């Protein structure tokens, strides 16, 4: 299992897509390839932009298919961050049908 503490790199405002990309390339994709569960821990993060969440997970879903969401858990998200993650997960999955 890989636990990624978002706050450690972003602080309370997760808006820097470069950091999201680092998380995705260096931790999320390698962990999924090893068939490990990934926990994205948003503890203490107050805001995450759609751009940040998109850069974090959209390519993972597009590459690995929607079932990859069974291997990723989103921990300690506030209501806004939950809503953003749902938006991104929805539109990426809809695009898979094309």
């Amino acid at each position: 299992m890989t636990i990624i503490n978002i706050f450690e790199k972003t602080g309370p405002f997760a808006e820097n897509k470069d950091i999201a990309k680092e998380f995705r390339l260096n931790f999320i994709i390698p962990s999924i390839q090893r068939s490990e569960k990934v926990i994205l821990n948003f503890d203490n993060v107050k805001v995450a932009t759609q751009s940040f969440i998109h850069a974090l997970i959209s390519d993972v879903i597009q590459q690995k298919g929607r079932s990859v969401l069974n291997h990723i858990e989103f921990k300690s998200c506030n209501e806004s961050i939950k809503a953003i993650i749902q938006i991104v997960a929805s539109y990426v999955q809809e695009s898979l049908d094309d």
Partner: protein
Amino acid sequence: MKIHLPNSAFLHNIDGFLKGFDPENPEILEISAHNSWVFVHPVAVSMIAALGLKVGKGNVSFEKSDSKTMPYFERMGLFRMLGLESGIIIEEHEESGRFKPLTQIRNSSEQSKFITDCIPLLHLEKEYQVQTIVYVLGELLRNVIEHAKSPNGAIVSAQYFKESNRISIGIADTGIGLRRSLSPSYSTKDNTEAIQLALWPGITGTTRRPGGTDENVGAGLFFIKSIARTNRDYFMIYSGDTMYKLHKAPPRKKFKLNIDPFKDKHALVEHLPNWNGTVVGIDITLDQTQEFDGLLRIFRTVWAEAVRERKSEKYISPNFI
């Protein structure tokens, strides 16, 4: 180039300020100001600073003015950014902390630092107000860094207005503008169409795929416009010779979040002096600000509708003979 700071230039009457911009002789910048009071939105200050950076220090002049508002421009960092000495000495007082002076943002680190520094200065009291401001700044600044191709990056400033309890934000760049930014994926006939597409959910210059690329999906500007719409506030975007302005709406009036920005109550001003780049101004009235997660729920519904609409365009109708 010439630009004049009038007596008043806020988003409701910004048209006059824009029409007064003269882009001829792009190697110099001559600034003049109304000779009594000058009250302007931060977007006007950001635009002047962006032009100043483009022509370079030494090529900017500021016509001597007796305006009593010159200390405001000193506080906002305009003279510093233009490389001019104002000779104005500022006495710090409490209110001086309620704005974020002009800042140049060229990369993600500068963006993050600006946003982190901005929040305490604007004295935001509620969590959802912080979320809204962080969101707006984060997405708008990122747009410039990624898409504007401006050597000087984004010029941003923000101010809290106590009487109206609102925060106004202005971001200007002198990059390639919306039309060229969209052109790798969408060819547009004019700046009006480019603005319409840029505000449309799911449209980005980086791809035509509905799910976007690994880094872009084309949600940023639609989301910012939606925040202004939901909060019933002004939002304006100016690129090339065209400006789109979302009108302010009465607080209690029912509204619909539209996919097509031209279905919202707006003004479109074409044939303005050409701005090489993009300018965005937004007001956020704090006591009208929606709970952020509520806004996101509305956004989610509208996005799904937009995706369905785009998909249905691809469907082939059966041929009946």
